[in-house]
């Protein structure tokens, strides 16, 4: 066997360029498998991380119904969430620890000569707990502020940086949101960028009543955010909320298609997103896998040519006593060496490209040992599989005919 490997290595050494070009197919195949899986795995991890950043027990209620196809949804169905729903949920739900109505408005924030485009979230004081925000300085607006639709707000660090460029203390200052003046009562603790690359500090929160009455002039709610007591109780909480909302909205069936609201838990959203990223990963890996097969066919092609080209050599080897299986193994070992060496180079190259992407792109990259092992195994199998036929052909040659071959 040692002899065979040295025979095969020698034969390959006599044709270095060709050998390398053949390997190239495998190198590209393997490295793209590794890079694709690294991207797929990375995006999955970033989704998971984002879920825990946002609070894995968060539950969101939106009006309308996506499942109905959204074609003939009238305006009233988009206004189905009322303050009463929120009040009932808050009173009756046993499985939630926090709940907040949410109304949203985008516009320009102005302070002095500075302005900054931002969206203002109207909510109650529970919102901090739900979204896992903390107050850094100052304080959260109060229930009294909500009752009176006070013109106050709490801002994120980015907003402070944009509006108060000369390092002034923002607390107590009044900024303008459109035509409404809002006094800053608190500044949020910085959360930095989330795993999707969004700036979590670029936000302003204000009493929902203020946004409802003074900015949007509406009475309905755009959404309701809540937190289940624990991640495990999210399902129970969702069920409970569905029941209450159906009762309030006089929906008598259990058919979710007929609901005029939609409850999504963060959990559910995460599953949906990660299954989407799974599909992406599978698709990308398939493409990469195909290139690996193409590489394998390249090996087969070269081994096939090389059998024909080296017919005389095979005849000679047989005439000095090589058996069919010695020749078979020699050619098989040659193709395995090509594919395994190509595989190793491909792994190195794939890791290099993945690391490069990790540094120079915003994508999250995660190289798994699993993908390395898999692509290495696939390589060896490709080598054996595509080397087999030419090797078999070589081993069946008739020594006299082979040695006379020109």
């Amino acid at each position: 066997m040692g002899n065979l490997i040295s025979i095969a290595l020698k034969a390959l050494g006599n044709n270095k360029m060709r050998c390398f070009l053949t390997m190239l197919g495998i190198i590209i195949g393997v490295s793209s498998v590794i890079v694709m899986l690294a991207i797929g795995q990375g995006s999955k991890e970033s989704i998971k991380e984002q879920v825990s950043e946002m609070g894995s027990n968060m539950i969101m209620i939106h009006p309308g119904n996506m499942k109905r196809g959204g074609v003939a949804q009238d305006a009233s169905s988009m206004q189905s969430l009322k303050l009463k729903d929120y009040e009932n949920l808050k009173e009756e739900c046993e499985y939630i620890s926090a709940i907040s109505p949410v109304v949203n408005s985008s516009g320009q924030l102005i302070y002095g000569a500075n302005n900054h485009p931002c969206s203002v979230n109207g909510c109650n004081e529970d919102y901090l707990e739900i979204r896992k925000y903390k107050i850094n300085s100052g304080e959260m607006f109060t229930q009294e502020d909500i009752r009176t639709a006070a013109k106050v707000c709490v801002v994120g660090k980015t907003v402070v940086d944009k509006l108060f460029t000369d390092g002034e203390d923002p607390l107590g200052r009044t900024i303008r949101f459109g035509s409404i003046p809002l006094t800053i009562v608190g500044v949020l603790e910085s959360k930095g960028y989330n795993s999707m690359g969004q700036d979590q500090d670029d936000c302003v929160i204000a009493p929902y009543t203020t946004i409802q009455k003074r900015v949007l002039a509406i009475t309905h709610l755009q959404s309701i955010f809540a937190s289940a007591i624990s991640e495990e109780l999210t399902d129970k909480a969702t069920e409970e909320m569905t029941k209450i909302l159906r009762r309030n909205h006089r929906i008598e069936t259990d058919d979710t298609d007929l609901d005029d609201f939609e409850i999504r838990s963060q959990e559910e959203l995460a599953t949906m997103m990660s299954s989407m990223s799974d599909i992406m990963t599978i698709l990308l890996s398939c493409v990469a896998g195909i290139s690996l097969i193409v590489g394998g066919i390249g090996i087969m092609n070269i081994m096939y040519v090389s059998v024909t080209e080296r017919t005389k050599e095979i005849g000679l080897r047989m005439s000095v006593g090589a058996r069919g299986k010695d020749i078979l193994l020699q050619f098989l070992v040659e193709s395995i060496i090509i594919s395994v060496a190509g595989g190793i180079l491909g792994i190195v190259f794939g890791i290099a490209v993945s690391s490069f992407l990790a540094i120079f792109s915003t994508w999250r990259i995660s190289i798994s040992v699993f993908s390395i092992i898999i692509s290495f195994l696939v390589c060896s199998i490709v080598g054996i599989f595509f080397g087999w036929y030419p090797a078999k052909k070589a081993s069946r040659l008739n020594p006299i005919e082979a040695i006379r071959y020109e």
Partner: protein
Amino acid sequence: MGKIIEIRDLKRFFLVGGETVQALKGINFSIEQGEFVTIMGKSGSGKSTLLNILGCLDVQSEGDYFLDGVDVRCMSKDERAVLRNKKIGFVFQSYNLLAKTTSIENVELPLMYNSSYNKIQRRQMAIKALEMVGLQNRLYHKSNQMSGGQQQRVAIARALVNNPVIILADEATGNLDTKTSFEILALFQELHSKGSTIVFVTHNPEIADYSTRNIVLQDGIVIEDSYNKNRKII
């Protein structure tokens, strides 16, 4: 002295486009250990066909062939390969060395297929064989860096290296000029004098004078089989 080769009524047919070509039509002879036999005959008389069978590269259609007392006819392909590896040294007209490969590696080739020798033994045996053919100064020359005569010497060393019971040469001087041919012939005579059994196929009648025995083929049969009384020594 033992019989190295014994053939009885050996026939070989080829099927060419539905017709049978009779290349060998019933050959009988034995070769004893230590003989230097030349096989002569015109082109197409069946010399190569016969030698290929003797060298276990081909199998007869009919008749018996015993090599060193072993019946070759009922052997499998692999068994014949092992037999070639251990008992036969074959020299071809066109050297058939591995390209881009040194003399010593070319000579080691038969030993690579014999697991009873290790790397060091292979080296030693190859050097010894190359010394026997006078190439001790060309151990690491590649095949394309040598003359035809030198290449043929490497090929002869390769045929010697496994200590075969018989050396078979098919027109071994066919590609060489007269002077080099005689040098190679002298080498065969020297090997013979050291005890090798040799069968040398040629269509050149001059060469027959240097052997101990001469067999002449014509159209697949032996027409003459004589011992050389006035053998010439180079």
